[in-house]
């Protein structure tokens, strides 16, 4: 069970959280103006990153807030968590494993 740092509540066990898929995918302002291809791209296409992956989590059994996280998919270690209204931190793949929080 991972430890995840909620940007609001701090370190909490994974069972308090739900996973929310890839982060930084914004719903188009005017979906009707998109052709089928572009809409399908938004709706279905997701990356399958090996390494640092930006993804959404929700502290569903805590403060209820969605937030974003950078997680190394090769180690399950969280490199950063940040609020929805914050930009993605620019973090390179760490050379050595990052200890958990």
């Amino acid at each position, binding site marked *: 069970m991972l430890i995840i740092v909620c940007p609001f509540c*701090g370190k909490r066990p994974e069972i*308090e959280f739900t996973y929310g898929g890839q982060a930084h995918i914004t719903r188009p302002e005017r979906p009707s103006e998109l052709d089928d291809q572009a809409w399908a791209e938004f709706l279905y296409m997701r990356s399958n990153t090996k390494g640092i992956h930006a993804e959404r989590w929700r502290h569903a059994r*805590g*403060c209820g807030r969605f937030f974003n996280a950078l997680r190394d998919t090769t180690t399950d270690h969280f490199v950063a968590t940040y609020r929805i209204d914050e930009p993605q931190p620019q973090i390179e793949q760490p050379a050595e494993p990052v200890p958990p929080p």
Partner: protein
Amino acid sequence: MPEQAAPLDDAAPPWPPLLAPATRFILHGNAAVRAAATAAWGVPFAEEACRARLLGSRATLWMGPDEYLLLDRAPAEAAGDTASGLERAMAGLDHALVDVSHRQVAVEINGAHAGHILNGGCPLDLDLKEFPVGMCTRTLFAKADIVLWRTAADAFHVEMWRSFGDYVRALLAEVARDC
């Protein structure tokens, strides 16, 4: 074939008893809303995450960045009037006030083993340094969502949705054997 696992026939009665009905509201809104609500509710709101404030029979509990639980140990009969008073105080400010007096039930767990008992289902570190008096949060007790609020070094106030009250208390009674 093995028999179905039977419920333990010496299950302890649910424990501890439910606290008396209380008045509860969920308030969403910003700092200005909270300031206005304080005037009507009589208790300030913690700006720090996961903290509660208590004054007399009334308390405010941080639930999320713009969400608070307002708790009054007085029963909910006058909840409508209290709500009206709060609404008047917050008039003109964007907010949401919802009466949830009947949504939740509560128990109090106290004694030297209170933390150990709760750790029979709650995954948080309840060491006094990590979870000090006045800290509150939504979390889990086994398969139920709870609100956990430490009211003293050896006392916790636990809120849960009313239909989970039997489960939480039956499980508390069971894990309390192991302390």
